[in-house]
Every structure is written in C-alpha cells, then in structure tokens.
C-alpha cells in the first residue's frame, strides 16, 4: 500500500509540469465516449477538475519551494520541446484551474443538456489543456500550437446552446465568424513573427532565444527584423488581449457566448494575451524594449479610455461587462508598459484580481438573465428583493472592478498607481485615474439599474413588443437558482474578498514573478542546464 502511494507520488512529482496538459488532452476523448451517459460524464468532469486544481496547487507549491521546474517532452534532448514551470506559469495555471473548476460546476445547470453531453465537455477540457499548455510551454512554436488548440476549442464553445437562451443564433454566428476570422489572421501573423525570429536567431527555445538575443544586444546592434517581430507580436497578442484598435470582436463575442464561456473568455482567455506579452516581449525580446514599451503604453492608455467610455453608454448587461474587460485589460497592459519591477508586479496582481472578479460578475449576470429573460438593462430593475444573493455578489464584483476597499481590486489598483507615481509617469497616471472614476460610474450605474428601482416585469415587456419575436426557448417558467449556480458565485466572491483583506501572499508572489521576468538569468540557466542538451 505504502509502495503504491510512494509510486504515485514519484509519478506525480516526475511529471508534474506535464500532467495538467496530458489530463486535459486525455479527457476530451473520454468525454466523447461517455456522451450517452450524462451522469458518468458529470462525475468524471468534476473529479478531473478537482484533480487538476490539486495538481496546479502542488505545482505552484513545488515551484515556490524549489524554483523553476523543467520537463523535456519525448526526451529528444537538444531538439526537443521543453515545458517550463516558473512562478508566473504556476500562478496562472492555478488561477485557470480554480476558475475552470467553478465555471464547470456552473455549466452543469446552465448549458443545455444535449449540447453539454455531446460537445461541451470535450471542447472544455481541450480548451483547458490548451490554456495550460500556453502557460507552461518553453518553446515558441509550441506556444503557437497550444494557441490554436485553445482558439479552435473556444470557438466551438461559443456556439454551445444555453438551457434558456436569450441570444439569436444569427448574432452568435456573426460573433463567431468575427472571432474566427480575426483569430486566424492573428495566428497567421504569429507564425510570421515566429518564423522571423527563428530565421534570425536560429532557435525556438525561449531560454535559448533570450540568451542569444541578449548576447546579440551586448555585442552589437540588434537586427531590425527582430524589432519588427517584436512589434508584430504586440499586434498578435494585442488581438487576443483586445488592445484597442483590435478590440472590436470582444464586445460581440463575450456577450453572445454562453455565460460560463463568457466568464472563461473574460477571466482567462484575454489574460493569455497579457501573459504572452510578458513572456515573449519581456523575457525574450527585452533588449528591444525602447521600441515596444512606448507603443504598448500608448495603446494601453487608449484601451483604458475607449473601453471605459464605451461601457458607459451600453444598455446590454453583458456588453457592459465586456467593454469593462477591454478597459481593465488596458490597466494590466499599462502596468506592463511602465516596465519597472513594481509596475509589473502590480500588473500581475491586477490580472489575478480582475480574472476572479470578472468571471464572477459574468456568472452572476448569467443568473440575472435567467431570472429576467433579457439582457437589456432598461427592462430590469428592482431585483434586489428577488435576488439578494446575486445583488450582493454583483456588488462585490463591481466594487472590486471599480477599486473599492476591501476588495482585491483596490489593492491592485493602488499598487499600480503607486508604481506609476514612483516611476514618475504623470500623464499615464492622470489618464488612468480619470478612467478609474469612469469605471466607478459605469459599474455602479449597472448595479443600480439592475437591482434598484421598480421591478419592470421584463417578461411582459418582451411580449408587448410586437417587432421582437419572443424566442421559442423562453418559456414563462423561472429558472430556479440551483446549488450549481450559487456555489461558484459564492466561492469566487470569497476569493475576491480574501485577496482584498489578506493581499500579502499575492503581493509577495507578484514581486517574485516580476523579478524573475526582468532578470531571466535563473530561467535561462535552469532550462539550458537542467535539460539534457
């Protein structure tokens, strides 16, 4: 018995970095096999998600204790693909597994049964595997492959049917088409950028690339193609992260996707863009920072302003949240573009806090939509007596996004502004502060519109309007708040408050990450020395 346990322990510790990806990839076909047995599927999905969360926690703990972990896929040695788990990767894997677990629990009740069994579970696990892969890979081309896995599976998930849909399938198709077309274009440009780097430097291993580009920068001038590739990477990852001139797909896609997937898209998938910028631009292409930092800062400020101002005028609940995501990712990218250790640490804190708060807000919005059968804020009102839990949860989320103490959002916003002050970036600070006020306005306007005022009886309202046909899938029955819908909201709410009241661990971890990113010596020596090459 003990030998079996120690065997499992050794197995887990040996393959710790690989296991989240491998399990995700394995679960996709298993779920396809179980597609006629919804009960078994549910049990398997929940078990595996808890397992993934446990593995992510172990990975995080081990990386925190023992430093960077390297895994050589296929034991190919010099030409192989490595997976690298450093603090940044481990933190984001933990975050993804945490949000992923609760989004999955939420989906049990929210997604329509046939859709759930036939395609939702396999694609969901495939998407999780893709996201874990993006966070953990140490190879530039492998990053592209995992990007594609994540992108294609999320495209399928956007089309999943909700149990009680308020969205036209024509709108869904339009949004998916935009998402696909822009995603394909982004993938193509990413390939061009990767090929450019490979043709110039002759390697795809991130640590190797970082070391070689550092040497090139020290010995002479950097070839212009590397600078061009760096700027192209801003376009590619900016497309994923909804940087402003490339943001217009997001307010279509995030609201039309089924709510759990909206939570996943806004919580994790746009953070993938920020993560990749951090990894590729700051780890590998850092010597070109004089070129990309000002550009990134300009567009980050533009993103903050456009997102916040657009969110003010929206009447669609999920669209407000989507535009808010655009604005908030601007704050994260602003933190990156300031370039100091404190600013990057603040950006990472911001990223984590926003991911938790925004996925919680989307899940809450889903519950509200199920109650009112509409996404239109003008048809809501007075729900505070009917949905006390949701009103509390939405208030916590709104306070966190707007940056009120004692929520997590306050700490991260405070740290970001403090780093801007200490770095003496006065103009960006001014714009960011101004838009923070706008954030307060649109978040609380939304909350008041939903929960205060008179109950307008949105069901009758929809019937009275003859031009808008009532969707066939919207019967008069109310969708009861089940435990599957309430539990994720409460859990994420608790996480937001805990990170606000007790922020020291996250602050410390973010500082470690920022130091590791700006001084990649440990990363390079561990990867190049650790793997057999």
């Amino acid at each position, binding site marked *: 018995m003990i030998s079996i346990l120690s065997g499992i322990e050794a197995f887990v510790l040996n393959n710790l970095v690989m296991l989240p990806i491998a399990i995700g990839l*394995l679960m996709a076909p298993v779920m396809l096999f179980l597609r006629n047995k919804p009960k078994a599927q549910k049990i398997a999905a929940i078990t595996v998600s808890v397992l993934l969360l446990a593995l992510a926690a172990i990975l995080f703990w081990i990386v925190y204790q023992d430093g960077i972990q390297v895994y050589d896929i296929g034991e190919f040695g010099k030409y192989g693909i490595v997976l690298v788990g450093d603090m940044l990767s481990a933190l984001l894997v933990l975050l993804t597994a945490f949000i992923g677990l609760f989004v999955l629990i939420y989906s049990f009740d929210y997604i329509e049964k046939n859709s759930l069994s036939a395609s939702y579970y396999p694609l969901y696990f495939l998407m999780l595997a893709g996201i874990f892969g993006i966070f953990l890979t140490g190879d530039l081309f492998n990053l592209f492959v995992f990007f594609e896995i994540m992108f294609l599976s999320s495209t399928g998930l956007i089309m999943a049917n909700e149990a009680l849909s308020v969205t036209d399938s024509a709108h869904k198709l339009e949004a998916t088409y935009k998402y696909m077309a822009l995603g394909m274009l982004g993938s193509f440009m990413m390939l061009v950028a990767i090929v450019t780097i490979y043709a110039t430097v002759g390697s795809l291993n991130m640590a190797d690339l970082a070391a070689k580009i550092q040497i090139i920068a020290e010995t002479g001038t950097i070839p212009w193609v590397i600078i061009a590739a760096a700027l192209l990477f801003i376009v590619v990852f900016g497309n994923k992260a909804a940087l402003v001139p490339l943001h217009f797909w997001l307010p279509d896609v995030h609201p039309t996707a089924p709510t759990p997937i909206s939570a996943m898209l806004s919580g994790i998938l746009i953070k993938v863009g920020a993560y990749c910028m951090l990894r590729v631009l700051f780890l590998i292409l850092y010597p070109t920072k004089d070129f990309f930092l000002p550009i990134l800062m300009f567009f980050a400020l533009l993103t903050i302003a456009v997102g916040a101002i657009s969110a003010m005028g929206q009447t669609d609940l999920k669209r407000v949240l989507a535009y808010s995501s655009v604005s908030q990712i601007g704050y994260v990218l602003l933190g990156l573009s300031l370039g100091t250790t404190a600013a990057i640490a603040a950006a990472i804190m911001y990223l984590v806090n926003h991911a938790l708060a925004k996925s919680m807000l989307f899940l809450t919005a889903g519950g509200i939509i199920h109650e009112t059968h509409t996404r239109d804020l003008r048809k809501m009102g007075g729900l505070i007596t009917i949905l006390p839990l949701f009103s509390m949860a939405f208030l916590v989320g709104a306070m966190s996004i707007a940056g009120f103490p004692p929520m997590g959002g306050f700490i991260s916003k405070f740290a970001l502004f403090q780093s801007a002050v200490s770095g003496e970036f006065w103009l960006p600070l001014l714009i960011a502060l101004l838009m923070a006020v706008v954030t307060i306005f649109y978040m609380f306007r939304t909350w008041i519109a939903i929960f205060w005022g008179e109950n307008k009886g949105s069901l009758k309202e929809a019937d009275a309007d003859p031009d808008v046909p009532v969707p066939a899938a919207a019967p008069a029955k109310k969708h009861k708040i089940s435990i599957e819908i309430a539990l994720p909201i409460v859990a994420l709410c608790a996480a937001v408050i805990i990170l606000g009241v007790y922020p020291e661990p996250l602050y410390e971890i973010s500082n470690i990450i920022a130091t590791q990113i700006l001084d990649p010596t440990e990363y390079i020596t561990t990867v190049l020395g650790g793997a057999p090459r």
Partner: protein
Amino acid sequence: MSTVIVKTMARAVLIVAILFSIYLLLNGANVPGGGFVGGVLFVCAIALVYVAYGMKYINNRLKPDYLSWVAYGLLFASITAIAPMIVNHNYFRSAFTHYHLEIFGIHIGEIELLSSMFFDIGVYFTVIGALLFILTNIASDKIKETDESESDRADLLGESEDFSLKPKAPVKTGATNVTADITANMTANTAANTVANTEEFK
C-alpha cells in the same frame, strides 16, 4: 452525377485508395506521409462512394457513427503519449526496434517498428472520423422549401380545403379576396366559409 461509369469506377478506386492510404499511414514515420495524409486519402475514397451512391445507400447499409471514430482516434493517440509515463519515461517518448521479415527462409527486408506508429494510427482515425462527420452533416442538411407558392396556387385553383386557416399576412388581403370570389362562384359548399373569411379581411 451517379452514372454507371461513376458507380463502377468508385468501386474499383475504393479498394486501391484505401490500400494506398494504409500504405501512407504505415510508411509515414520517416518519409512523407503519415496519419493525417493517409486519413485524408481514406476520406476522399469514401466521399467518392457517397457521391456515386448517395447518402441513403450507405446509411441504410452501415449506419456509421463517425463521432466515435474521432473518440477512438483521440483516445488511441493520447494513450500512446501517456504510456511512456507509466514506465518512468517522459510524455511522448517513443521507442523503436528493427525486425527482419522472412518468408520461407527468404529474406524480404527489414521493418522498423515504431511506438509512435500508434500515435499515427490515432491521428488516422481522428482525421477520418472528423472529416466524414463534417461531410455527412453538411450533406444531410435539408434545405427547407417554402411551400408558400404552392399554397397560393392551391388557393387560386380552389383546391385549398382549409379556409378556416388564420390569415397569413395582412399584405395578401387583395389576392385572397379574388380567390374568395372565384371559389364562392365555384362551390356552394365552401361559400359560407369564404364569405366569413372575406368579411374578416375587410
């Protein structure tokens, strides 16, 4: 499309194409080919049969469930990748061995047996399942025919029996009036109905 020539050729080509696709699959580890290309060739052969004989012909005989092909293929591929982890190697580690093939004591040649071949087989089935799933789904999509024109014609000819139908659209009032007049002249039986109808429209 489905002339005798196409049908006959489809039968002849099917066997050759499938054999060649299996050859591509098994040969593709180190030379051009492999699971994906082999799978696509297999799909081409099957698609030719679909074109020649039609959906119904195949569905009546086989009732293929292509989604489970995808599931088997993916499972096969991921298990191949995970298997080395159980024997203390890394994910995707592959092993190979050489095997002398002899028949009746005559040396035929040397075969390279690769464990990554199983991965290729998984890819092969995934590609076949996914492509045929897409093709058959698109092919079985029925175009909804609008029966509006037919019902109009029926109205004009007085063939329509059900006059108590709800008025379809207010735009058509004029046309229905004309039909109502014609039918009222033609049969006394439906006259009461039509009068009621016309009055409703006015």
